[in-house]
Every structure is written in C-alpha cells, then in structure tokens.
C-alpha cells in the first residue's frame, strides 16, 4: 500500500508538469489548429531565461514571472509574425516552420548557454533531504507537493479565464467559428496571438518546475516532457483542455505504476514506451482521444 501511494504521489506531481505543457499544446491547437512542435523548446528557452534573471540576482519568484512574460511574448510574437504568414500559404508549411523553430531555439540555447557548467536552477521549494511529509507511509517531498500545487493553481486560473472572462469567451468563440467571431467584432488576430502567448507562458512555468526537479539545465531539458505532453494531449483529445489535464495526470501516475510494479520488464527505461503503447490502444478504441470531439482532422 505504501508503494501504491508513493507511485501515486510521484506520478501526480510529474504528471502535473506534463499537463501544464499539454494544456499549452491544446490551447494552441484550439486557436489555430496547429501542432506546435516547438512548444517544449520555447519552454526550455524560457527556463534558461528564468535562470539568467535569477543569476543576475533577481529573486526566483520574480524571475519566474518575468520568464512567463518572456514566454508569452515569444509565443505571441511567433504566431503573429511567422505562423500567420505561412498559414495563409500552406498548412504543411506551418508544421515545417514549427520544426524549424524547434531546431532553431534548441540551437540558440546551446549557443548562448551551452558551455557554462551544468546550470543549477534553485528549486522553488525546500529541497533538503528531510523536507518531506509522510502520508499513508509514502514519502511526499515538499518540492513535489509544491510543483503539484503550483501547476494545479495555474491550470485553475486558466480555466477561470476560459469560463468566466470576456476574453476567455472570445477565445472559445474563435476556436469554435473564427469567421463568425470576426463578424461579432472579436479581434481574432489578437486572440490567436494570445493563445500562443498563453501557451508560451505555461511552457515557461512547466519548464521551470521541471528544471527544478531535474536540477540541471541543458538544451535537451524539455524534449521528453514534450513527448509526454503530446501524449497527454492526444490521449485527452487535442481540443479538450480538461482532457489534457486529466490525461497528463493519468500518464504521470500510470508510468510510475508501470515502472514500479514491473521493474524487470518495464522499469525506468521502458516506462515511456509502455505509456505510449497504452495510449495507442486507447486511440484504437477512441480515435480522437478520451474527451476530444470527433471533428478534429486538421494537422
């Protein structure tokens, strides 16, 4: 039982990071109908930015907020300048451009921060060996509790934004029917740029949380998280924000269980594959994810 809760707690915390990035993917997809392949790399760059601000002596919390602002600007800027221009001409072009961004941002990070000694991003939460709480016999580190709390808080705020604000209404309207949204006077350009911006800001936070757990920053920081996040968005349904969150948490928990209970066959190195295979099977039964609507066919 103790093991059960241990895997559950670890899985929830890690899963909340996947969920955060997955939510970014979903927000972008709902807005402009694209898979942003560079989502993880944008998050990675922003994490370095957070580290840089912090390294210059700015308090970590402020650095994180600044990093999220940079993430917003990056996402919105990319949409408004590059994505929109290419999307007018060819949809396949958008995919290439997001891959180009993926490559370019990765390279940029390596160029700027590549040869420094492994960066240590200070954790946002107390992370001494005895900073933990025992719940049902399982160890829950404060850092993991903190990550889960921050991620859930941000996701909660986002859902409030979606559901309760006029801007959120505009975002949903644009996602549902962009043409009529324009006719209703919604500045669709600003809304679309903002959805990319919001995704960028969430990426910055997920990167920072993940960086705190990993401890070391490098250009490959977010790659696996991006795979997990894509898996979560796929499993949840690419146009369903709630689905992304549920699926992100489920994948986090599921992989811990798989790795923990089958150390011989699956273990740490095969847990991602096992998770992917499971999703594969789910998709065969529900081809547009658990909570996605079936009309989604664009790439």
């Amino acid at each position, binding site marked *: 039982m103790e093991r059960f809760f241990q895997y559950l707690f670890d899985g929830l915390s890690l899963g909340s990071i996947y969920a955060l990035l997955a939510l970014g993917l979903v927000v972008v997809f709902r807005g402009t109908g694209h898979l942003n392949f560079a989502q993880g790399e944008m998050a990675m760059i922003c994490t370095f930015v957070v580290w840089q601000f912090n390294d210059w002596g700015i308090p970590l919390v402020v650095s994180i907020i600044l990093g999220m602002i940079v993430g917003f600007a990056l996402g919105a800027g990319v949409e408004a300048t590059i994505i929109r221009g290419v999307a007018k*001409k*060819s949809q396949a072009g958008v995919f290439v451009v997001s891959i180009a961004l993926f490559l370019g941002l990765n*390279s940029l990070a390596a160029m*700027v921060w590549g*040869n420094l000694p492994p960066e240590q991003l200070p954790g946002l939460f107390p992370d001494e060996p005895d900073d933990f709480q025992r719940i049902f016999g399982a160890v829950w580190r404060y850092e993991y509790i903190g990550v889960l709390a921050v991620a859930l808080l941000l996701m909660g705020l986002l859902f409030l934004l979606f559901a309760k604000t006029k801007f959120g209404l505009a975002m949903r309207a644009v996602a549902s029917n962009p043409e009529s949204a324009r006719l209703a006077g919604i500045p669709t350009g600003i809304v679309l740029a903002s959805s990319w911006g919001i995704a960028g800001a969430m990426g910055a936070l997920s990167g920072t949380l993940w960086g705190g757990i990993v401890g070391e920053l490098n250009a490959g920081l977010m790659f696996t998280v991006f795979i997990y996040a894509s898996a979560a968005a796929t499993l949840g349904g690419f146009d369903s924000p709630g689905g992304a969150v549920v699926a992100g948490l489920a994948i986090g928990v599921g992989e811990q269980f798989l790795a923990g209970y089958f150390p011989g066959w699956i273990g740490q190195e095969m847990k991602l*594959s096992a998770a992917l*295979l499971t999703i594969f099977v789910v*998709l*065969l039964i529900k*081809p547009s994810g658990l909570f996605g609507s079936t009309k989604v066919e664009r790439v």
Partner: protein
Amino acid sequence: MWKIHEGSARHWMIRLLGVAVLAFVVVWIPTQMSSSRIGQVTDAFILMIAAMSLNLVLGFTGQISIGHSAFFGVGGYTAAILIKDHGWSPGYTFYVAAVVAFVVGCVVALPALRIRGIYLALVTLAVAVLFPTLVRWKKLAWLTEGSMGIDSVRYEDVPVWPILGELKGREGRAVFMFWLGLIIVIVTYLVCRGIVKSRFGRALVAIRDNETAAAVMGVNLTTTKVLVFGVSAALCALAGVLSTLKSGVITPDGQYVTLLGSIVFLLVMIVGGAGTLWGPIVGGLVYVLLDNTTRDIGTNDSGILGTLFGWADQSPATLILGLVLVIIMFAAPYGLVGLAKRLSRKVVVVIPRPAGTAKPS
C-alpha cells in the same frame, strides 16, 4: 513565353538535354571529387530515398507520418543483424530488410485506418520514439546489442563490378557506395513513379483529397492504406540499409534512427515539394548542401560570420538551418519544385497532349 507540345521533337530535346546534364554530373562526382565529398552525395541519396518513401504516404496519400525513422532503423538493424550474426553478404540484406519493413509498415498502418490528422501524427511520433527504446531494451539485447549498437557491418571487400573497374580501400568503398546509392535512388524513383501513375496511385490521391469520396468511388481504403504504408516502409528500409553499410555501424542513437530522423525526412520532403516526384530528390540535395555549408560556421573565427557568431558556445548551424527553412516556407510554400514549376511556366509552357490521343499502353 515559349510554347511546346508534349511529345513533340522539341519536348524530347529538352528532356534529353536534362538527362545528359544529369548523367554528366552523376559520372563526374565519383570520378573527380574527394571521397568525403562523394560520401556527402551518398548521404544526400540516403535522404532522397527516405524522403521519397515518406512522400508516398504523406505527399500522395495525405497520411501524416512522423514515424519513418523507425522503418529506417528496421532496415538498418535487419541488415546489421544478418551480416553480424548470420554472416550474410551485405548485398542480400536489402531484400530481407525491405520485406521485414514491409510487414512492419503494414502493421503501423493499422491505426491509420481509424486514426486521422493530428492523432495519426502523434501515433506515428510514438512509433518513432518507441523504436530506439525497444532497440535499447535489455530484454532484446541478445538481438540488438543494446545501446552499444552493432558495428563492423560494412562491405569488407567491395564486390567487383566490371563497369566500375577495381575499387580498393576507403576511396574505393566510397565510390562503390555512391553507385549503390544511386541505383537505389533510381529504383525508388521508378517505384514511386510507377505507383503514382498507376490506378493505385490515383486511389492514393483520391484518399488524400477526400477520403469519404474515395471510398464512395470504390477505393478500398483498408488495402490501399496498408499497402502504401508497407511499400513506403520497405523503401525507407533500403535507405536504412544503405546508411548502415556506408557507416558500418548502427546504434539506437544513430543519425536517422531517432525521432530526429523522421523530422529530417519530413523537412527534406516538404522543402523539396510534397506530392511531387522530384521534390524529395531536390530536397535531399538542398538539405545536404545546407547542412554542410552551415556546419562549420562560427568554428573558425574569421570573416563576418566569425564576428557574428564568434561569441557563441556552439556552432549556429542548426539555427541557420531553421532560419533558412522559415524563409523557404515563406518563399516556396509548396516546396522548391512547386516554386520551380511556377517560375518555369513563365518561360516555357508544355502543352499537354489532347486527352485520348496518348498511345495505348
């Protein structure tokens, strides 16, 4: 503007001229260039083959795949295992690799029967992620030798082909791999061309343009999709074998065995021109050229690029590649071949034969 009729003497002259120039370049490269340059051209061949195979599935059938690196890896590993564990002669592994990959491709196609669009993209992405982890898996280490990979699987002695003369040592092997690569490029091109111009090819395009309509018109979606995935995987495996024989090793982190491989194939295909027969060929050439010219920028600190990038901790090659890709997508959203077609139409117009007058075949 210059108008010529399809099938007229002039039209054939132009075609012949094109073939002559190509043939000249093709002979010039292995006889006049250094072996490392020849090797780069062979790299371009490898990319062309992989991108052509992807083009069948994505460009012509509209089924997105980010999983072709797995087929590439299946080919490479099949060859390596046969050579290393079973003492096969390299040349025969091509056939087996193609067959194995064909089967794998058909299996991967099964989800494509139900899953579409972005979900299919992510499923194939999962295939690309799965393959290297499977290869590395300790339960399979007896076969794949885990993360060490399999080495010394190149041609020990280059087979003697009278037409090429005697090829010896490193240089000889480079020249031989060039010719081998060229042959596979041509074979792949002919297979793709044959498919695209056939009834089967029209079924593919019908699926791409409107799946429901295609089904109504009597296209069997299941067989068509499964077959095209199988053929595409088999062709991609050829590229994998070629690459393994060229470098002599294959590892789970190998150049095109990981997800990155799928991404490169995709870039090559789209930059060249998706859904065109020549697109992947042009794309492969451009990609290798771009890669080789940008790779060294910033490492030797001279000239304007040195001043620009001297501060960087790493070469800006990939960044520049990214920028160039963005520019290409703005300038040529349908790829370079698409752009070339549009531009050349301003100079020469080929008037097609009136329908129904083609020679019966």
